[in-house]
């Protein structure tokens, strides 16, 4: 019997499957949404796309699973490497995929400055609330009070709202979706890959780590996914909630959307001025 195949597989390196991710890890769902966006845009071959990642579970998505050029860089340094690639060859579409620790903690400065420059990159940050790869320590996104190996008495710090922080910069596009909001997420990917094709485009995916967040709550990844379908709401709705209700919900949506010239457009203008 000829079996049908998942649409994602044509974008993946089959010889290394199944992935090294834990059973039920949401990273694979983000991949599905991304690949479905490519498919719906009619992009079947990724040879003009370069994926750049840092260190962490989510950084393994492109390296080695995506069948495209990929640079698996140092912890936190995906954005500068991606910047170098894009500036050296503007023909390439450069996509960064990384974790909340990688992009917002150790690489946080690069994130801010790439956004400020409106650098022509797509950045996908998987916020799994912890450092998954190193066994679930607290990240800058870890909710206050959460117990992890480095916060055994509960996290004393306030988490960082990365999407809203970046929304206050010069970036062209900023959105946050929960992994449960699959169609919104896929449509955001389509937007930044097919429509707004320049400037800094940042998508945060709220996707708690199955092993070090969900299992610690004694839940299954399926149960958590269904729970997220209720806890993740549009930010306009979230803003109208009373304060004590807000902490129980995740505000999602598109925080910023523009199509102004990116870094490269401005750089090209400067070169053109030189030639005159």
């Amino acid at each position, binding site marked *: 019997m000829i079996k049908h195949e998942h649409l994602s597989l044509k974008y993946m*390196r089959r010889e*290394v499957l199944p992935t090294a991710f834990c059973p039920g890890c949401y990273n694979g769902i983000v991949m599905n949404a991304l690949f479905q966006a490519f498919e719906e845009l009619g992009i079947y071959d990724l*040879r*003009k796309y*370069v994926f*750049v990642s840092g260190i962490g579970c989510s950084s393994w998505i492109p*390296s*080695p699973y995506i*069948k*495209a*050029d*990929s*640079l*698996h*860089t*140092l912890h*936190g*340094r995906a*954005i*500068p*490497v*991606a*910047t*170098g*690639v*894009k*500036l*050296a*060859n503007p*023909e*390439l579409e450069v996509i960064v995929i990384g974790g909340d620790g990688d992009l917002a903690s150790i690489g946080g*400065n*690069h994130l*801010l*400055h790439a956004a400020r420059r409106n650098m022509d990159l797509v950045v996908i940050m998987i916020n799994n609330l912890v450092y998954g790869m190193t066994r679930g320590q607290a990240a800058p996104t870890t909710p206050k009070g959460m117990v992890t190996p480095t916060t055994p008495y509960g996290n004393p710090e306030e988490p960082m709202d990365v999407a809203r922080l970046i929304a206050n910069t010069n970036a062209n596009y900023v959105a946050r979706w929960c992994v449960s909001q699959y169609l919104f997420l896929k449509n955001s990917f389509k937007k930044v890959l097919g429509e707004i094709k320049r400037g800094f485009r940042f998508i945060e995916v709220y996707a708690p780590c199955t092993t070090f967040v969900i299992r610690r709550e004694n839940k299954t990844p399926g149960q958590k996914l269904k729970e997220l379908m209720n806890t993740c709401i549009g930010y306009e709705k979230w803003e109208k909630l009373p304060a004590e209700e807000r902490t129980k919900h995740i505000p999602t949506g598109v925080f910023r959307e523009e199509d102004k010239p990116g870094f490269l457009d401005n*750089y090209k203008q*400067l*070169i053109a001025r*030189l030639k005159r």
Partner: protein
Amino acid sequence: MKRMFLSGNEAVAYGAIDAGCRFYAGYPITPSSEIMHMMAKLLPEAGGVFIQAEDELAAINMIIGASWAGLKSMAATSGPGFSLMQEGIGYAVMTETPLVIVDVMRAGPATGQATKAAQGDLMQTRWGRHGDQYLVVLAPESPQEAYDLIIEAFNISESLRTPVVFLMDEFIGHGREVVFRKEPGEIKLVERRRSSDHEPLFGSDDPRIPPPMPRLGEGYYVLVTGSTHNEYGYRDVHSFETHYKLVRRLKEKIWGNIDKVFKYEVIGDPGRAEKAIVCFGSTCRSAKEAVMGLDNVLLIRLITLWPLNYDLLRELLSNVRLVVVPELSLGQLIYDVQQVIDSGIKVVGVNKVGGGVPIYPSEIKKALEV
């Protein structure tokens, strides 16, 4: 050939442009900033890209990305910035990324004396990173040599697919002299070997021959990783064989090509000399003055500081009874000399650092009188 009057820093920038460098990322720091200023001016005119990075961590990683996208790339910095770049340089070694990193040395540690010359980063250029890693270190003694040698630095980085550290000090960086700038036709340029379909991108049968390197976007589905990888780029973070084979090959790629990359200058007759001076960079200028008229002193100026040809150094020093090693530091190169001489031969360091005070020829002369 064009006659110019340039500082070492300016000469580096012109040399880099003439070597085909088309991407620069950096963060301002004394005493290297003039390189950055020049590149900001020259690169857009040459059709290249200049970007001021948010820090040196970004700078080194930007040039890594640009190199994989196909451009010859450079970053220049000084002490504190060079320290921040170390992890990225290690990544470039592991991924065999051609780059040139210029370190214009100032007095350290920490912020030290930002405007004052020193030579205390020598060991850091070799051993500043974690793990087993080897690269090439070159050191000019004048603006003219800075110009010529930076072109060579790019050629070596391309031919061996390796980062090359270009080590200067503040005296050379800021000192101005006549420099002859070559015309395009007068320069021999080396380009990295491009890919053919069947060759692996991270392995070769002969470790001295680096694997080919495609540009991103050419359809090779390149897997670049700083983690241990097999010859096709696939991560293997468990097996002894893969790791051992990889780091051995990367080491052999540098040391096995020592004949191609080791450069030095000798003044005097090794057969007749009783005494010797071993030096690099700006201190050699005082040393050269010190040996003028002395026919029993051998002067060995190391232009390549890594890999170091210990056998050759041993041979050159085999007949002398005294070696003087002047350094603008508390002594680092002296360890190399101590490694190759027989016991009984005296090794004397002339060490000074700070305040922008040079080592005077008279001080070297005095040391030779021992």
